């Protein structure tokens, strides 16, 4: 039955997935195990996306199904899930930019791939990134931005890391609609990604998990 849930969710069959979860819950199965299967399924979704078999709507929809499953399972959870994490990542859309869709997909994919993500939201001032990096000790920072005006916010955020003596302690990746290698050089980031799974690969590489 575990494989059933993994495969139907990976195939994005929402109703079938919900039915299996319902059955497993009423059979008294450990809720954490169900959640772990669901997470594994979405990891497969991410792989299919990286292989160009799936596209953004598939990622978004898998997130919706996962949310539905989590809502079903949550009331039955005795304690908060203790999941072994690969590493910490601070993420946010930089100052002046409020676009969140791309950033949210990256956060979602990092999360299901085992990272602990601190999502600072949108229009995040440099200082907030600095505070979160210090507080969490995260070695990876993801800066998102859709507007070309975000180039300068990214550059300023990375400069603020330098000024706070944090730049050598973190790896910085950037992403967004108009982000290229030229922009990476301009902002002083370590890497850039054209889609969410590139972000996951970078994070895995930097934590030695890839």
């Amino acid at each position, binding site marked *: 039955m575990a494989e059933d849930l993994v495969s139907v969710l990976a195939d994005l069959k929402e109703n079938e997935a919900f039915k299996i979860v319902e059955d497993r819950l009423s059979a008294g199965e450990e809720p954490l195990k169900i959640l772990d299967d669901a997470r594994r399924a979405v990891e497969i979704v991410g792989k299919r996306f990286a292989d160009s078999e799936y*596209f953004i*709507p598939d990622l978004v929809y898998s997130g919706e199904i996962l949310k539905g499953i989590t809502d079903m399972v949550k009331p039955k959870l005795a304690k908060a899930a203790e999941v072994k994490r690969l590493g910490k990542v601070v993420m946010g859309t930089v100052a002046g930019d409020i676009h969140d869709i791309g950033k949210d997909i990256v956060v979602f994919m990092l999360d299901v791939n085992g990272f602990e993500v601190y999502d600072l939201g949108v229009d995040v001032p440099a200082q907030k990134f600095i505070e979160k990096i210090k507080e969490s000790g995260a070695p990876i920072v993801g800066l998102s931005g859709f*507007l070309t005006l975000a180039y300068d916010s990214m550059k300023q955020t990375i400069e603020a890391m330098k000024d706070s003596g944090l730049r050598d302690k973190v790896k910085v990746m950037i992403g967004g609609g108009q982000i290229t290698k030229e922009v990476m050089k301009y902002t002083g980031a370590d890497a850039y990604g054209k889609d969410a799974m590139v972000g996951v690969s970078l994070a895995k590489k930097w934590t030695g998990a890839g």
Partner: protein
Amino acid sequence: MEKKWEEMSSDEKQEARFQKWLSPEGVEFFSPEVKQLYKERATRIKDAIQLKKLPDRVPVLLIPSFFPAFYSGLTPLEVMYDYEKANNAWKKFYMDFQPDGHFGCVAPGPGRFFDILDYKLYKYPGHGVVPEHTYQCNEGEYMKADEYDAFLQDPTHFFITTVLPRIFGTLEPFKQLPNLTTINEMYGTGITFFPYGLPDVQAAFKALLEAGSEALKWIGYFGAFEKEMPGLGFPSGQGGYTKAPYDILGDTLRGTRGIMTDIYRQPDKLIKAMDKMTPFWIQKGVAEANMNANPLIFLPLHKGADGFLSDEQYKTFYWPYLKKILLGLIDEGVVPFVWAEGGSNKRLEVIRDLPKGKTAWLFDEVDMIRAKEILGDVACVAGNMPMDLLTVGTPEQVKDYAKKLIDNCGKGGGYIMANCAFFDNVKPENVRAMVDFTKEYGIYK
């Protein structure tokens, strides 16, 4: 005797619209030389689009977002509220860079109009965005997943009583407005109208009248700009705009997440809603082309980009309805000037399915060599000057890229040089390099 409009073929209609645009009525040209310049530029664009005659050179267009404001040392906030400053900044931009056309002073929009109505659909300078940044959409479900039926039954009533109250805080009382399509006998009619007497509804209408006055004031400036620019030698590259049905629903009604889940959960309703929208948006494009005596109608494409839909989803949910819009415009002799934002590499073979010489496709991210190969005998290709080069590159890099574009896409005509996306804070010297180099290198001998 001249042929009646209804009797003309779409070819003839297009030609008639172009001729009107080539010799605009009521325009006072600055000088006979400028009049000649206008005609040369308009002809150049027309030839590049129609694929019948080789233009004298590759046309070059600049389609800015708030760059003209930054270039004049103004913030987006200032030009949103000071309409005269906006006009002056946009005029200075076109006069200084001398591209082959203008795209109106439309980006700033009337700030006070949005304030009066408590506009919630976007954050804009002074309202959730700092004065130095541009407006940005607040993604959301302004039409909920279970509201397709209400929308399909009567889209206009749905907009008035459901969408408007959500996107304009001031118009929230419109939720109470009756559906006037049920006005019938004298008996009962009085009952229908009582909501118009409610104090909060009346206050909303008063605000709406005030907002209307502000829009009228702004359109006066906007209209003056539209009238002045041809007189200074710049044909208008945009007679109005329309959109792809999938984007109409996805951008500001269902939202990105909403529409993507509708693809799986309620595909039939999504398709019905797109069908319902299509005639409204064809009519809008044609009406604006008529009103502005301009064949070029702008179509910014968003959610059909590479990756945002699978090939199959694109062919099911995006292209058929976009194609209906395009053909609806083409039938009336209107020229869709399509701006494919994001990636288009996977879409080229699909969009090829169009009549020849009727559309222009401005590309953001695409392999332009393939784009020209696949579309070259059907449509004018345009754009692709990358935003990163214009923003952080050097004039030399811009020229090198422009040379590649002209070499690869300019051959035999059918290419227009343009920026790949709306631009804000790019380097002026890079914009200048793009325009000047095209004028020098893009001449057909």
